[in-house]
């Protein structure tokens, strides 16, 4: 390697500030060499150190009766009874997906699955949350959508984990920064729960899985530039490429090793590769680790030590095992045709020492690497000017109610997601009781007759209008989705997708959103058990819509009572339940009409929404109501359309004609539910909560009367409109 030490300009090129570089020099006692600077620059990045979000994240509620493992591990976990835990987490792969959507999305799924089996749970489900630009106007966004969906399907389908749900929104604010967030759930025995803290001085550090190549050496590649005196120019960064077959073997191999009790601690290799994994393990275990990079199985023999340490090659795991178990562990790896190598040792030095054969090429205090990165205060400031342009007008404000409903039902944010989700296998593993479009949340049967429910949500448009109230709406909608299938939330995961937090207006969006997540999760008793932060999602045209993506997992006692969203029988009574005060502010209708975002949204009454969620949950659990659907984008008219189309059953409904009919039909708010059931059951429900009987199920058209106005549309016409996304996938 080069004798010449890197300088300040190299540190700046790697994303460190001048002050941070000076702090590194101070912690090291001298300027860092190439390997050391590469490792510091990664571990002190926002991605690893959360330096602009840590203080906010500390304010989130993380404890609750069901929580078995909270934030800080590879994934969080909640107790689901009978000795089983459910592990879950959402993570982003936004930037790689913007560069290469197929591999970016695929490796996003691969990464989140490794997080799940790293804590000892078998992955049982994937959900995704996607954001792209205006697909009606942007060819690039259509390309990104098509390839990201194909990538998610490719990975999840090939590895045998069902993709059971997800959501996608299209907004011009995501044109330059698409979002690809993936959530995974796993199931495992509680006693097999694995932590990542390295333990046992003298224990062996073993890497297994794919070999290590030059993929994903992004920012660090600057180190290989000519200024360092290194003439090689072939060290160009490459996008990581996923291989689900390799991961499938890695997963089965890991689960077998865990079942046999051969592993002391386990960690996947994700962002920042071996650097991040090894340092995290050493830090949590309060030990040191020595690694010999020459023992790491390589794809390209001539890799530099720093390249090996920062490579983001996929499908690799790092574990600590006892010396006596090395042969047994390697035998299991051989069985699954997974390569393995002992590359280091746990020490009591509290140092990360990197060797290249006998030569010491890097030595750093673990504490300096992991804990001493400066943490910054945000400077939140509400912007005085609107941040986002008004959307293009796609619907004439003078259009009739019926035409407006058809336009909404066919708009990209509301139309059927079938062309996307039918590229995913939702049923492998034989647990899926509710597939996409059958219910508001996916339902997965558990061995003892109970079931898990899971939902993912994040309406950036409403958060952009009001980060606090909008985010409350996102968290509450997740819980409402769970209530509609009869589930009680156990825990929550979040992915905070925002712009540059060093800008005061983004800092304000982020602070307000986190405050809302904390308030809502506290009220719902659905603590945060893990998550991820994706900042700096912005370009010359400004930041993305602030997009907190929330994933929530719940439990229901009796899987046979899992709710569904579609109407069930002719003649049944339809009721509107809940404290529903719709408003057109930041609604999909206002978007289609080309209206700018308002400054602020009406206040949400968290407790009132939570109270009605409990009523709906119980009514579903008892089988009192036959269907339940949360009113979301497009308001009550769209919700009724979805209930009708899901069952191919029409309805005749009369809504309160007082006030604005547009608001009544298309206004949005938290806390409204459409339920259907026999008249006597609805009467019984009315004794528990405020509800309005609005109509009856039947026929082959949807008829909604409001005051003097009537919408009358054949289900076939609504269905044609609802299927508008299919045209993109012909």
């Amino acid at each position, binding site marked *: 390697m080069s004798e010449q030490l890197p300088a300040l300009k190299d540190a700046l090129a790697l994303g460190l500030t001048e002050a941070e570089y000076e702090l590194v020099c101070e912690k090291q006692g001298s300027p860092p060499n190439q390997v050391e600077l590469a490792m510091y620059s990664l571990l002190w990045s926002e991605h690893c150190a959360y330096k602009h979000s840590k203080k906010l994240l500390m304010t989130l509620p993380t404890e609750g009766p069901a929580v078995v493992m909270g934030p800080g591990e590879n994934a969080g976990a909640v107790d689901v009874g009978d000795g089983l835990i459910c592990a879950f987490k959402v993570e982003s792969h936004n930037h790689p997906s913007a560069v290469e959507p197929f591999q970016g999305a695929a490796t996003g799924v691969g990464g989140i699955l490794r997080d799940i089996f790293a804590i000892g749970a078998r992955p049982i489900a994937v959900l995704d949350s996607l954001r792209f630009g205006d697909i009606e106007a942007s060819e690039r966004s259509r390309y990104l959508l098509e390839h990201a969906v*194909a990538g998610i*399907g*490719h990975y999840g*389908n*090939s*590895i*045998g984990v069902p993709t059971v749900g997800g959501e996608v929104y299209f907004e011009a604010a995501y044109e330059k920064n698409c979002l690809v967030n993936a959530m995974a759930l796993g199931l495992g025995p509680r006693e097999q729960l694995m932590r990542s803290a390295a333990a046992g001085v003298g224990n062996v550090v073993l890497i297994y899985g794919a070999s290590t190549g030059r993929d994903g050496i992004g920012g660090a590649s600057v180190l290989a530039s000519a200024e360092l005196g290194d003439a090689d120019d072939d060290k160009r960064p490459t996008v990581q490429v996923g*291989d*689900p*077959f*390799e991961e*499938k*073997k890695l997963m*089965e191999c890991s689960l077998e090793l865990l079942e046999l009790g051969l592993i002391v601690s386990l960690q996947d290799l994700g962002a920042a590769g071996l650097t991040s994994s090894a340092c995290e393990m050493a830090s949590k275990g309060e030990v040191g680790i020595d690694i010999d990079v020459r023992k790491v199985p390589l794809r390209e023999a001539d890799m530099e030590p720093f390249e090996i340490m920062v490579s983001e090659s996929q499908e690799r795991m790092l574990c600590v095992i006892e010396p006596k178990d090395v042969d047994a562990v390697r035998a299991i790896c051989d069985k*699954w*045709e997974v390569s393995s190598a002992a590359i280091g040792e746990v020490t009591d030095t509290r140092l990360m020492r990197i060797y290249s054969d006998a030569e010491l090429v890097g030595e750093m205090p673990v504490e300096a690497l992991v804990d001493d990165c400066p943490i910054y205060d945000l400077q939140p400031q509400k912007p005085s000017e609107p941040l986002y342009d008004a959307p293009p007008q796609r619907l004439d404000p003078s259009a009739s109610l019926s035409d407006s409903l058809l336009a909404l039902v066919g708009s990209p944010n509301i139309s059927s997601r079938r062309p996307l*989700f*039918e*590229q*995913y*296998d*939702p*049923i*492998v*593993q*034989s*647990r*899926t*009781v509710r597939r996409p479009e059958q219910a508001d949340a996916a339902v997965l*049967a558990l061995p003892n007759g109970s079931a898990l429910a899971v939902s993912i949500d994040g309406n950036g448009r409403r958060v952009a209008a009001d980060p606090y109230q909008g985010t409350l709406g996102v968290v509450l909608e997740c819980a409402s989705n769970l209530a509609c299938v009869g589930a009680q939330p156990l825990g929550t995961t979040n992915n905070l997708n925002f712009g540059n937090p060093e800008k005061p207006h983004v800092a304000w969006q982020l602070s307000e959103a986190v405050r809302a997540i904390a308030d809502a999760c506290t009220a719902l008793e659905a603590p945060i058990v893990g998550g991820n932060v994706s900042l700096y999602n912005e370009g010359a045209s400004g930041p993305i819509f602030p997009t907190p993506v929330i994933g929530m997992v719940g439990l229901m006692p009796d*899987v*046979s009572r899992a709710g569904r969203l579609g109407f069930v029988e002719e003649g049944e009574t339809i009721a509107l339940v809940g404290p529903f005060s719709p408003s057109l502010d930041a609604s999909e209708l206002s978007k289609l009409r080309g209206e700018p975002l308002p400054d602020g949204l009406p206040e949400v009454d968290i407790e009132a929404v939570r109270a009605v969620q409990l009523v709906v949950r119980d009514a579903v659990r008892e089988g009192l109501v036959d269907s339940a659907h949360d009113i979301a984008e497009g308001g009550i008219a769209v919700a009724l359309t979805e209930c009708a189309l899901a069952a191919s059953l029409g309805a005749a409904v009369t809504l309160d004609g007082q006030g604005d009919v547009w608001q009544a039909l298309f206004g949005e708010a938290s806390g409204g539910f459409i339920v259907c059931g026999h008249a006597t059951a609805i009467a019984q429900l009315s004794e528990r909560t405020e509800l309005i009987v609005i109509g009856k199920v039947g026929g082959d058209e949807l008829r909604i009367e409001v005051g003097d106005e009537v919408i009358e549309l054949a289900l076939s016409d609504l269905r044609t409109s609802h299927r508008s996304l299919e045209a993109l*996938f012909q």
Partner: protein
Amino acid sequence: MKTGILRFPGSCDEVDAQLAAQLVGEAVLLWHGDRDLQDVDAVIVPGGFSYGDYLRAGAIARFSPVMESVIEFARDGGLVLGICNGFQVLCEAGLLPGALLPNANRRFTFRQVELEVVEADTAFTSACPAGELLSIPAKHGSGRYYADEATLDQLEESGQVVVRYRPDQNFNGSLREIAGVRNTDGNVFGLMPHPEHAVDALTGSTDGLRIFESMRAAVEGAHV
């Protein structure tokens, strides 16, 4: 009845097939590297992506040690059911005629489809009334059944086309809507849709159970 379900690296639906087969008897997993079929009465080659579907779906799995035993087992008249990737493996192994090409829509596609039982007098469909429609999910990227015209004519004449897609549901573009075929001896059957994912009303339909019940009847009839 004892059923053996093959497990290759990259198999995905082997446990699902085991759960389904357990509804009609005993079911064990058979590791790809072992030649011992453990005295099973029937073999299922399950769905998934054996060996990552490298080269071509099913192309590598057919050379595995366990497949050598399965080929011998089939030649001796043993019942072999190939589902999805398993169907592809059986075609690659020459146990079934034809081939599965990439879907006409060029995408992996999941759909609940209705299958017409063309031949009800087989070891795999005797529990289904002829002409009955079975609601069973399909999920694959390469499921377009292909054979040359002469072979297709011959398959139809000899009653080897066992199940067809309802014509408006043939999303993968299979020739003559063929969803599943058997060999001339009638002891090997492959289909793209997944009967093992249609054995429980809770998770979908129960129509796929007929396939497993038929196999049990064939095995137990043979034992009598």
